[in-house]
């Protein structure tokens, strides 16, 4: 009889190359020989990313290659609010402004010192819309936390050593923020793209804008696509109270030399992920 349980390690590793992340986990639960191989590889391989989203309070993950939704348990999220994803870490914050970074599968955690955001009485319960970190805090203490908050009008910056965060108020609604090529960039509701300049005062320097899609209801995301700064326009329309549907996506590459938007018709077979993305294994 063929002995599949004791297949050689090298052969099992060849098979692992072609499994999706979820298939790969189930593979590890078959028998102890398979588990041993699984255990060795689990830390090294990079898998096709999962999209993380919330169904009510329940975190769910989805991978378009498998077309299956899984509910995952992140007990650490119970008292925390998820505000971003940077460098493989979920960024979470609680009402006392403690920031915690978490890798949702390995459950590795890093506690950052409380970020002293600037809050007034009335915006105490207003949540952060989006947070990003300039570099991996588990590797270096030279990082900056940036967050969009207060109805998307304020930007806060904080780095280790600061006693309080530096806050600026924008004149327009901020849609997204990204750390790209050594600087923070933000995009406003009307497509204003600004670079954040740190000096005596923090300033938003507008570098490009376009008014093409103004009348459309949309969400704008920024993505670093193989070294290019892309703006993703997700055209949406309401389908009822509190529910939206996506109509289509428009893509623009930001030409930073000419300070203009260049529409992209395709991305050559690549897949872009915006907002909540989990990079496996983490």
């Amino acid at each position, binding site marked *: *009889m*063929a*002995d*599949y*349980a004791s*297949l*050689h390690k*090298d*052969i099992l590793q*060849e*098979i692992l*190359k*072609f*499994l*999706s*992340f*979820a*298939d790969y*986990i*189930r*593979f*590890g*639960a*078959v*028998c*102890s020989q398979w*588990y041993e191989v699984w255990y060795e590889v689990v830390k090294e391989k990079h898998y096709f990313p999962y999209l993380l989203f919330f169904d009510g309070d329940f975190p*769910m*993950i989805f991978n378009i290659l*498998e077309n*299956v*939704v*899984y*509910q*995952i*348990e992140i007990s650490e999220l119970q008292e925390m609010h998820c505000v971003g994803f940077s460098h493989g870490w979920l960024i979470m914050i609680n009402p006392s402004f403690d920031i915690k970074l978490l890798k949702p*599968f*390995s*459950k590795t955690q890093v506690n950052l010192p409380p970020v002293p955001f600037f809050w007034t009485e009335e915006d105490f319960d207003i949540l952060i819309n989006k947070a990003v970190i300039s570099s991996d805090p588990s590797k270096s203490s030279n990082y900056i936390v940036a967050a969009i908050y207060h109805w998307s009008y304020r930007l806060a910056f904080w780095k280790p050593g600061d006693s309080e965060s530096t806050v600026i108020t924008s004149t327009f609604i901020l849609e997204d923020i990204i750390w790209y090529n050594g600087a923070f960039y933000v995009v406003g509701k009307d497509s204003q793209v600004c670079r954040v300049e740190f000096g005596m005062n923090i300033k938003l320097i507008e570098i490009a804008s376009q008014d093409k899609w103004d009348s459309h209801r949309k969400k704008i995301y920024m993505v670093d696509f193989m070294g290019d700064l892309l703006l993703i326009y997700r055209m949406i329309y309401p389908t009822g109270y509190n529910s939206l549907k996506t109509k289509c996506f428009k893509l623009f590459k930001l030409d930073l030399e000419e300070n203009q938007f260049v529409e992209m018709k395709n991305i050559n077979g690549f897949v872009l992920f915006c907002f909540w993305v989990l990079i496996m294994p983490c």
Partner: protein
Amino acid sequence: MATIITKEQQEKEKMVTLVSSDSEKFVVEQKVAEKSHVIKMVMNCCGIESPIPVRRVKGDILKSILEYCEKHSKGEAQEVMEKWDKEYMDKAEKDLVFFHDLMLASHFLHIQELVDLIAVTFAGMLKMKSPEEIRQKFNINNDLTKEQEEHIMTTFGWAFQPI
């Protein structure tokens, strides 16, 4: 009168004899046998005059492997090859004993293309299957320790309940 022998004809004449573990003999072109990295190395150091024993591989498996190598030494169009590979694997995966031995042999003989093809096919057989379904299909005993099982279930429990 001089006879002109083309390079192709010259190559064609280079035949090598391979002997399986159950003493079955196969005479194939050198370029076919060369698909196996291991046999290629043996041919390079020992020549092709005397038969080469392939001790760990039985006749039926070696026959099938040589069929694969022959097809893959012809340089046919990609679509033709993909179709042929698919049929080859469809047949192989029907008999799990044969499939297992084919997997070991392709690995032992170091035919990377075939190793990959078999691994993809095997991965396909595991797709969306629970560990129990996999154990049943491949006749595997669950010998996981409590710690191993707990480790997987606490860290990756979600993967066992697709919605």
